[in-house]
């Protein structure tokens, strides 16, 4: 009795063919591979936004979120689950996003407000003046080598 009950609870006794299926999984697999190729494409020389890395970052994060959604919806069967899925996933996801958003102004942007005097005591090497003479259009250009800005 308990066995039938647990398979009832899993919701697979009645609608076994309502979802899943090898065909669907393979389609998702192909999508995932294509998307991985897409984010890897930003590494190739053909990627047109080499000089504005932010475009690449946004693109890659969008691709990653899409991949994550595909995995969760199809492989983790969330698409076919009851509404409890929101209870368990939303709070955790929101707390994760809030954590990062709260850390960015205090820690992430700390060096942007450093005074000249603060820079002298800073653990980070002082490079705040360098991007201006190096590449005035893209002050946040991270693509240069680490030694690039030290020649000032």
């Amino acid at each position, binding site marked *: 009795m308990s066995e039938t009950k647990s398979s009832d609870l899993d*919701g697979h006794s009645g609608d076994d063919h309502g979802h899943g299926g090898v065909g669907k999984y393979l389609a998702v697999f192909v999508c995932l591979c294509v998307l991985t190729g897409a984010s890897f494409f930003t590494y190739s020389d053909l990627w047109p936004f080499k000089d504005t890395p932010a475009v690449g970052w946004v693109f890659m994060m969008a691709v990653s979120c899409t991949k994550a959604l595909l995995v969760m919806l199809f*492989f*983790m069967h969330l698409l076919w689950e009851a509404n409890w899925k929101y209870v368990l996933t939303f709070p955790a996801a929101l707390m994760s996003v809030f954590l990062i958003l709260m850390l960015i102004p205090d*820690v992430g942007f700390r060096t942007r407000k450093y005074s000249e005097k603060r820079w002298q005591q800073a653990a980070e090497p002082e490079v705040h003046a360098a991007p201006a003479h190096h590449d005035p259009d893209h002050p946040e250009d991270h693509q240069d080598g680490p030694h690039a800005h030290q020649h000032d």
Partner: protein
Amino acid sequence: MGHDESEHQDHIQLEYQPALPMSNGKLIVWLFLSTEIMFFAGLIGTYIVLRFGAPAGTWPTPADVHLSEPIGAFNTFVLICSSVTVVLCLEACRAGRAATAKRWLFSTFLLGSVFLGVKVYEYNQKFSHGIYPKKPRSLLHERANLEYAAALRSPLKAKRDELDKKKVELGGSETTENAESEEAGEKQVESRLEESEERDLQKYNRLLSGVVEWAEYVATDPATPEAERRDVLVQLANYVSGPGHAHGHAETEVSPFAGQLDQERDELKAEQDRLEEKQRQLLAARQNNSGSEATQKADIQSDLAAVEGRLKRISHRMDGIGLLRELKHGINEDYQMHLPIVLPSGNMWASTYFLLTGFHALHVLVGLIVFAIGMGMYLDPEKAGFIENIGLYWHFVDLVWIFLFPLLYLF
């Protein structure tokens, strides 16, 4: 048990109604996964904040830290495949095809092992380049300063002294055995410093006096302009770690430093000629003034000493330049050495990289253990709940990597 049930027959029969329409196991896995989301969000968030909080241009590029993007992409592909195999395993298990289910589970296990194997290879690459998560073994320095030059000097000096000592010992035995028979003479020929060791000794000497000590000398000389003092140390760091991978991987026949070094050599040559001329004049002056005042003689003597000291340094530097001109990828790579390198934010990068990938690899390892347990079972439809639960966990591991791959390898 049966007795118990008959006793309870008098009471009202309560039927258990679960709060959520799923088995306890699956509920627990999902609860666990929601805490895992926050756990990895903390780690990834820390990385994002530190990476984008680093002053512009100070965060290492993947090439600086020897991360290979194709390898990362391959690992992503491996994990995606393993996600598919585990989901196919669940399908087969539910359909009652136990043997097929086991095959898919075994494939998942294999793919997970491949992932970990690649990780081991990658970690080895980091370690071989002196990138460690912890300071005492890490060879990364934040800035090219005098402290860095000193950190370069001490291992070179230790190696040089070791060979020097060996040479002196062998040389010493030579003198004592000189008077003895021919047999002893034969022995000392064997125990002389080997040719490769002799070459190493010369190399260390040239690196020490012609590269490191020269940079320290220029950087601490009060006559050197401020900007040049910094440049000479930055240049020193570049000689060690190579011209920077960010600017093309092309193999060149000519050393990337050749132009700069040739210019320096020409300047030093001119100075050398000037100083030699001055040295001749001073020597002549010393001879002519042999009978004159003591103070004047002392002046000439000190000038001569200064000129000779400078000339000696220049000749050391010329040797050093000769050695540096042959460099293709930097001292460390060309000479198979493990000298400290300068990589701004490199230690912070190493900490976050090893923390993120380490915890992820740990999760993969746990997954592999559970798969191994699953492979010992007969996977009939009864085990579908178990397979589904480990599948959920495994998909989550894949999900984390989906974010880690672009963040670590492509950003």
